[in-house]
């Protein structure tokens, strides 16, 4: 059965602002966030830390070119 996740063409991007005290902490928190969402394979596309925290965009690829795409199953 097709799930909503199967209909994602290529990647799921999540962007938000997290409160933290360094870029390193931001990366650790993003890792934990993605694990908690069941998306352990991810890549941080952009991260900008300043003042209260970090503005970030993180990406989990669902279908990469050459894969057997979920949207063709």
């Amino acid at each position, binding site marked *: 059965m097709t799930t909503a996740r199967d209909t994602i*063409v*290529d*990647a799921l*991007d999540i*962007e938000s602002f997290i409160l933290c005290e360094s870029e390193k902490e931001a990366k650790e928190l993003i890792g934990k966030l993605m694990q908690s969402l069941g998306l352990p394979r991810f*890549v941080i*596309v*952009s991260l*900008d830390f300043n003042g209260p925290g970090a503005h970030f*965009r993180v*990406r989990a*690829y669902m*279908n*990469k*070119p*050459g894969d*057997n*795409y979920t*949207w*063709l*199953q």
Partner: protein
Amino acid sequence: MKILLAPLDPVHDAGLKLIKRKLEALGYPCVLLPPDITVEEIGEAAIAEKVDMIFVGRTVGYGVEQLFRRVRHVLTVQGVFDKVRVAIGGMAVTDELAKSLGFEAGYGPHTKIEEIHAMIEKNPELARHITHPVKNKPKFPFPHDNTVKNSTTKNLLDEIVDGILDWTADKSSPGVVRAHITESQLQDVKGSVESYTALPFTRDYLAQCDESVVDFFQKNICPPSVRQITQKEVDAYINRIDIAKRNFHPRVLRHGREKPLVFVQYGTGCPMMDGMHIKVAESWGADGVLHFDPAWGARTEGLMDGFLTNAEDGTPVTYANLSLIRRSLDAATLWTVRAHRGLNTPEIAVLSGFLGADMTKINIVYGSICGGTDPARLTVDGVDAIRTATRYNMPFDIPTNEELAGVPPHKAFAGMLIMAQLGRRLGAQPILKPLLCHGPYIMVNELMEQNYVDYNFAKIRALQALADFPIWPGEPIGFMTHTEEKEQSATTTALHAAMCSTLGVDAITTASTDEAFSRGPITADGRVGSLRAMEEAFRFFGETDVAPTKKADEWRDDIIAGINRTLEAVTEAPSFVDALYQGILGDKADGVYPGRAGKNSVVTAPKPKAVGRWDVTPAIVRKKPVLTVKAVTPGVLPARRRR
């Protein structure tokens, strides 16, 4: 039809005032109530004014559902709701919400008056051009004289072009031979993908190929990152594409101006992923798309065949892959297939021409000094490819991405103009493709420290002063001004697009918001982001121009002088090919080197017939392909275009 317009806001009634003015212009008598009225007063006014229809507006979004539920209740109690048609509108209103509450229709922000008119008259045709816009394929490139206006430049270019044609007159190459074999075979099978894929392979073709291509055909061995796509995948893909086509409503990005057309480059590695990205790009307003092949494809003698997907950048050029992509395109979408820089340039031009591509891409200079192909080889192949482009009526664009390596614009432009004049001499339609970038030469010489406008203006104005060819900045605009941050990336693309609108260029190639992201493939969503940003920039500027400072004129003159200086140096070299080897159009100090792929492969020999049957020796019979191509409707193949 008398209409009551009722604003249910404490102070705002701007939206309904606008609607009133437009409805009255269409001939409908309207009564506009003041703001800050009660729901009960709406019904009372409707009875008193004996209206046929009520349009209730609510700007504030909070609690909108409860409010309109009450409107319906009160109007029902007053005996109005069953006698008078009622529609609603506002920031948080949707048609779904309106209908779920029993209203005739609901309108959110950005509603066009034609849609309201269609609802009032119960005639969807009145808004068809809004709800179902039609986009026709533009006649591209737009008209130009296609002449070099500066006499000094023209004389130098003519001398160089004479030399190129003399030098190549008695030369051929494996790439040229393969192109002619392929063209003969395609003629034999009348362009049928199935028949072409099932053709017996010839010793003549394989004799001109690298071992990896021979292994592919004889042993079914694919390169490491490549696999064959299954028939099931192709069928499911075509089903997806057909769904996308059914739900497609064209969109125009420009606002008031005819130019520039907007192109998107694809080449994710997989023709099916490409196709889905193309549908996304078309749906968000792209006018055209460009096919990019993998780097290894340019350095391999010979093309493979069938539906192939590559797990790395660049989608393999095969007749079947290109057919599948062509099958995916909307009828209004312009399609370009890059041929220009490698060992298969002539053959890709043939495939593109046979499939009815609108354009191709050929630049001997870039391919030789920056694309890794031997200058002598690519000069022979490039001339043959331009002849093919002429034969199939395909304009070709001339990219100057050698600027990204560090070649100064005046040298890159000199090479581009040589190609343009060569193209004209061979009867083709060249398109200049300068790069609007923050490239190494510009960085080192601090030409964009103050702004990104002046030097880019200087580049385009220099070309426009020298010649009147179509100009299409790419690939993509704003190269090396993007960062990984989506907002920044979309903004810089949009601002470059707005600048190009002022410059009056014919087309642009847009980046995605993933342009600077190199740790994974470009996403479909990234394409939407840039296209939306450009649409907004075009809307913002309309027909207003961006103005450079006086510095742009000074730099324009420097570039023109540099172009003529470079062309003069090329004429002083023993030949154009020697000029490429010597680095006159870009040298090691500029960060470029003569390519080595195909070195010593040029042969001095009688050329095969320009068009027609190549003597095929069917000694090696290919294995039956793993898949058939029944899913690709034969009817989608175009009639061959031939001059």
